[in-house]
């Protein structure tokens, strides 16, 4: 009984860590530009595809991940520069469609470059399951959770300790004021896209050995990341991380104890229930409209 619960928790935490990274990506971009970037899932896909195909052609794994990460960052900056920045004053729904257009475009390019089939990436340290209190776990799960934890801590330090990080935070609080004190707001937006892309790509690379990589892998991961970000409160970094873990664990428990077919619905039921009582998510700011 306990072993079963533990098994579901482990599965949930693994996928939840990826949701958390994606949700963090959404939040970082939202903070800097008030855009919901629906192409966030494609950054994950780029990371997963690049690392799988590059290692298959003989590139050492760390280098492959680095290249994938760099590629995703470049793509992120391009999306920010040529699509999002030009449409700064467009309405929310227009911006949503622009980023969805970007995601379709990126999937199309990925299909052309890497093909439509599933790619396999070998697990980083073997596939011998680790037995743990009756549950068993892939070594790769440890990689996923560990990498996510390191990245999240690094992001926290980046925002609180470095000048660039503080500039991004300042921009999110008050764009105009940030501009007035000499922060290059445009560069902040570009930096936020690059940063989110990097998070997504690394997440994609570490999760690829578990899920396989394919050009559509980013769609659901991206949506779940969005759910995580909204659950935690848009723009609230630690909230997005918590949101991701909650969604991941709830999904795994739902699949185990309720119905595996309704697994994907769990995240959305939770988000609806939470928004019903907390319209700004679990940790979001409660603002009063100023008139």
């Amino acid at each position, binding site marked *: 009984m306990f072993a079963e619960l533990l098994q579901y928790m482990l599965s949930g935490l693994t996928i939840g860590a990826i949701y958390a990274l994606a949700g963090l990506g959404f939040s970082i971009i939202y903070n800097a530009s008030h855009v919901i970037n629906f192409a966030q899932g494609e950054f994950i896909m780029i990371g997963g595809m690049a690392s799988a195909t590059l290692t298959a052609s003989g590139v050492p794994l760390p280098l492959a991940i680095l290249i994938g990460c760099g590629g995703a960052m470049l793509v992120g900056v391009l999306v920010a520069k040529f699509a999002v920045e030009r449409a700064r004053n467009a309405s929310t729904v227009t911006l949503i469609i622009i980023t969805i257009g970007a995601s379709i475009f990126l999937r199309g390019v990925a299909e052309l470059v890497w093909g439509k089939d599933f790619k396999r990436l070998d697990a980083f340290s073997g596939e011998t399951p680790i037995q743990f209190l009756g549950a068993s776990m892939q070594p790769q799960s440890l990689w996923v959770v560990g990498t996510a934890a390191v990245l999240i801590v690094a992001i926290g330090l980046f925002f609180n300790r470095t000048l660039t990080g503080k500039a991004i935070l300042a921009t999110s609080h008050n764009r105009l004021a940030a501009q007035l004190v000499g922060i290059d707001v445009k560069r902040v937006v570009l930096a936020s896209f690059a940063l989110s892309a990097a998070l997504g790509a690394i997440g994609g690379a570490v999760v690829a050995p578990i899920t396989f990589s394919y050009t559509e892998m980013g769609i659901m991961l991206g949506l779940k990341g969005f759910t995580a970000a909204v659950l935690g409160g848009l723009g609230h970094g630690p909230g997005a991380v918590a949101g991701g873990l909650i969604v991941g664990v709830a999904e795994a428990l739902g699949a185990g104890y309720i119905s595996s077919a309704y697994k994907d619905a769990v995240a959305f039921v939770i988000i609806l229930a939470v928004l019903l009582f907390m319209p700004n998510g679990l940790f979001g700011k409660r603002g*009063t*409209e*100023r*008139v």
Partner: protein
Amino acid sequence: MKMLATTDLSPDTMSQARRVGPPILKVEHLSREFGGVLAIGDLSFTVAAGDIHSIIGPNGAGKTTLFNLVTGVYKPSGGRVLFDGADVSGMAPYRLAARGMSRTFQNLQIFFNMTALENVMVGRHLHLNTRLLPALFRFPSLVRKDREAKDRAAQLMADVGLEKYIDADAASMPYGALKRLEIARALASEPKLLLLDEPAAGLNATESREIDEVIKTVAATGVTIILVEHDMKMVMGISHRITALNQGRMLAEGTPQEVAANADVIAAYLGAAP
């Protein structure tokens, strides 16, 4: 409400010849806090029907918060608001509008996705058939009343001096004209009580004087007006009574002359401690 008269009443005849009407609005021990900070604290005052009643005070005194509390945009943390004898504390703005209360905004709240005329026609909302089926199937009665509303809105725009903007998109109008458009829209709902939040802010001297005239003409038709304004010349010129606030609390109340002479008011405006 009658159509706005074009006759002018000078302030002098107004202040001397009038009698004080019954109370239309009573604010009792009203308070509101934001995250532990008191924006309005234990505030009580009464507005008499037919008056032009001004609220003054330095920036941050809580004037706009008070407006938002009275008109239902914010809910009070304590105390109550009586309108026409009924307790309306925390009542939704659209219900208050149905009872005869409307307002304008310090930061313009124009429907920029419509023409100027349509903006004013929205003000006729309460007097039109706004049900779904008649609208979908274009009942003749609805069309006829809508046409009347259009004429009425055009007349109101003329009354506030916006004739030439009748067909304009609201988004293409200058700031001064939009200020009046808000007044016309509010008037279209035929309020008994009209709250004007800094109607002259950002206007030049000529425009200010014109707004001044508009307010007086509206008041002359029997509409009670509560005014928040920084232009002291205007406030002193047209108000019957003035309530002065500082840091969310009552500082002084009385006729323009009384308030102008109040030492606390002068101190607050000069920034010294009272």
